[in-house]
């Protein structure tokens, strides 16, 4: 059992356990916190895979942004100690069957398939390379999606402000 493996299993276990906790927890704030843990653990996973920038973004954007947003909205819409109602039996059954069947189906399929690891040389994942590619319009450039995303974000920003604003009338 090597170090990376141990780390991976710890991270994986954290992700699975906390995600399950997050959806089954009946206290909504706790659920949000469990979600936070999941996201942080994922950042660790990214880090393991040598994507430091992505891990950082994950931490900042999800942990720092979205989860905070969620917590805010929780605070806005419910009492802090209110408990969620328990899920309905039929929903639980249907969801459970689907989830388990899906996991089983996917896992079996995945495990039957042999992936051939690449023998190519890895490119660097330092900020410079990322930055250059992000702003590039060449074959390996992502300027266009970047711009599109920025427009999308702007639109989302405007949209959410518009939706969330109090009606004048």
């Amino acid at each position, binding site marked *: 059992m090597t170090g990376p493996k141990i780390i991976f299993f710890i991270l994986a276990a954290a*992700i699975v356990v906390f995600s*399950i906790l997050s959806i089954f927890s009946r206290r909504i704030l706790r659920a949000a916190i469990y979600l936070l843990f*999941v996201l942080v653990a994922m950042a660790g996973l990214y880090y393991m895979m040598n994507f430091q920038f992505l891990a950082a973004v994950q931490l900042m954007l999800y942990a720092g942004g979205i989860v905070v947003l969620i917590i805010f909205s929780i605070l*806005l819409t419910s009492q802090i100690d209110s408990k969620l109602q328990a899920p309905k039996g039929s929903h639980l059954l249907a969801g459970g069957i689907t989830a388990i069947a899906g996991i089983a189906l996917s896992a079996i399929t*995945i495990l039957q398939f042999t*992936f051939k690891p690449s023998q190519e*040389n890895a490119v660097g994942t330092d900020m410079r390379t990322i930055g250059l590619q992000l702003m590039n319009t060449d074959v390996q450039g992502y300027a266009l*999606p970047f711009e599109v995303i920025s427009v*999308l974000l702007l639109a989302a920003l405007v949209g*959410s402000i518009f939706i969330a604003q109090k009606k004048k009338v």
Partner: protein
Amino acid sequence: MNLQAEIPLDYMIVLSTIVFFVGLMGVLIRRNLITMLMGIELMLNAVNINFVAFNHYLFPNRLEGHFFALIVMAIAAAEAAIAIALIINIYRQFNTVSVDDVDELKY
């Protein structure tokens, strides 16, 4: 760090599958809009794991998966922003965030 020898790609993908379906289950069983949103976030993240893992294991000479994950995150942010705006609006309208009670559009 060379992960390929240590952890096979399969592990990553199975992990992401589990997270995805747990997220899906969250969407299916919870009635609270916010928890459903959280489920969706879980699903998005599961997908992100896939992107990143495939990039890392199969195409280390490129960064497509990486950028896709970035874009997904950006979209997730936008989605969360709008979703929460909607949730707040719904809360104002119906004074609840339970999907069961929001059924004005039902036939």
